[in-house]
């Protein structure tokens, strides 16, 4: 195949993928189209940021974005912390019942949230945590934990077994070896796992919708689902709100793609 045809084939694949992404691009275009043009069903002559101004100044979305960021960051940190502590002995120490625990971890990644949401709701209510960040952080972090442990165990097993032995020879204790030798070596894998957890937590809807009641704790997906429209549906504003709610995942896919893909493949292509 000649060079020109090669380039043409590559461009054709890119064009096909861009065509596939049309629904999202269409939403982006709608978010930048003035209301009058949307109502007329016309192609926009001029783009405007009016919908974004409305969403930022007059809708509950900014607060919801803050809630989403807070909940997702704290839940990810919590899951990562607990995950590292559990994954280390599961991967590298003689832990009793290790195989059984790993089986339980794998099975819990398949848990349907709909089967656990009712009892968790009763617990959240009984603890007085309804409509708080804490309820969402606890539910999201624990729901993300199995995948986190699974990924980290995989990454830890890839590290050479001599790693902590060398540290022991140098007189380091177990905690010191974990902190100064294992954790730095695990960092890239842990970052990939955390990225995936952050993405899933940011996107989570069922718990967020069920455990929240007001703007105090509603996350971006919930605010978008409940986006107010008084007399008619404000399609342009909804489109702008959609783009804003999708921004962190989009940034992750574009900027941190390598880490994201690493996490996705590690979670799926290992047996």
């Amino acid at each position, binding site marked *: 195949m000649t060079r020109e045809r090669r380039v043409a084939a590559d461009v054709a694949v890119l064009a096909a993928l861009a065509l596939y992404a049309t629904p999202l691009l269409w939403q982006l275009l709608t978010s930048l189209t003035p209301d009058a043009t949307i109502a007329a069903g016309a192609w926009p002559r001029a783009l405007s940021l009016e919908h974004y101004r409305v969403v930022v100044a007059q809708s509950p979305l900014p607060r919801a974005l803050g809630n989403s960021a807070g909940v997702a960051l704290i839940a990810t940190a919590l899951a990562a912390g607990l995950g590292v502590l559990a994954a280390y002995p599961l991967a590298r120490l003689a832990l009793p019942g290790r195989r059984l625990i790993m089986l339980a971890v794998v099975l819990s990644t398949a848990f349907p949230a709909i*089967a656990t949401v009712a009892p968790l709701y009763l617990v959240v209510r009984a603890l007085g945590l309804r409509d708080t960040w804490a309820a969402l952080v606890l539910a999201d972090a624990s729901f993300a934990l199995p995948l986190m442990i699974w990924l980290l165990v995989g990454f830890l097993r890839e590290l050479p077994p001599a790693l902590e032995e060398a540290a022991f020879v140098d007189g380091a204790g177990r905690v010191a070896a974990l902190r100064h030798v294992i954790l730095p070596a695990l960092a890239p894998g842990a970052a990939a796992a955390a990225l995936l957890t952050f993405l899933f937590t940011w996107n989570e809807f069922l718990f967020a919708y069920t455990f929240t009641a007001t703007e105090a704790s509603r996350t971006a*997906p919930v605010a978008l689902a409940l986006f107010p429209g008084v007399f008619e549906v404000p399609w342009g504003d909804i489109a702008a709100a959609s783009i804003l709610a999708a921004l962190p995942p989009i940034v992750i896919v574009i900027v941190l793609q390598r880490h994201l893909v690493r996490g996705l493949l590690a979670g799926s292509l290992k047996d």
Partner: protein
Amino acid sequence: MIARGERRFGLLLAAPALLVLGAVTLYPVAHVLALSLQRRVPIFGVADWVGLANYAFLTRDPAFWNAARVTVVFVIASVAVELALGVAVALALHRQQRWRAIALALLLLPWCLPGVVTARTFEWIYHPTSGLAGAVARRLGAGAPNWLGDPSLSLAALIAADVWRTMPFVALLCYARLLGIPGEVYEAATVDGAGRAATLRAITLPLLAPVLLMVALFRTLDALRAFDLMFVLTGGGPAATTETLALFAYRSLFQTLHLGYGAAVSTVVFVLVGATATLYLAAGRADATR
């Protein structure tokens, strides 16, 4: 006693995570099972043990059987189309030589979005008078379909939206597997005079098979559990044509507030997920020993 110290240290480290896992997986499942054996209507202060009455009612409830049928159609159609499309995209990506990062970013955009964003996006695409899908249909002379309002189109419209957001996952995993096939395998096939179709059938697809089986498992489990997309896009309507078991369970639990009945439906979803996982794992084992 190094080994004993190591064990104790390991248990100490793992204990918090294991406790949390037990608290949010084992406990809720036990609680849901218990709830499903009760008649619980909190607003009327009703809480009685009724044994298997909820399950007995389930078998006679047309709304349950409708949800079961919708779920089966949704899962099978959605997963089948995703797999076919995903393999095709992976093959195209595999031949890509330049701008692979851009291609992957474009591919993963639909996958990374919150389900609610996808729902809101497709709600607008499917708008009966102003939607993009309608404009394309009119241009093709297919009239002006009311995608989400017409009971004969709504489930297909929902499946299309679900395929759109999940196909990239299938494509990515298949693409990664294709990258792992050594080039010599293909060179040998070319030397042997195999054409492109023969190479695809005899080499590529068999090598992809184990990954496809696993992806099919992940996707089937996700499709069984899916909630956000249909909850926001169709809410189960029109006339319950898109009401899956997860939606039906949610409606019973939190809208009609029949906790016991909703718990019984949740248990059915849970059992379906477990049965699916077992089935696929057995198929995988049979595949590995062959």
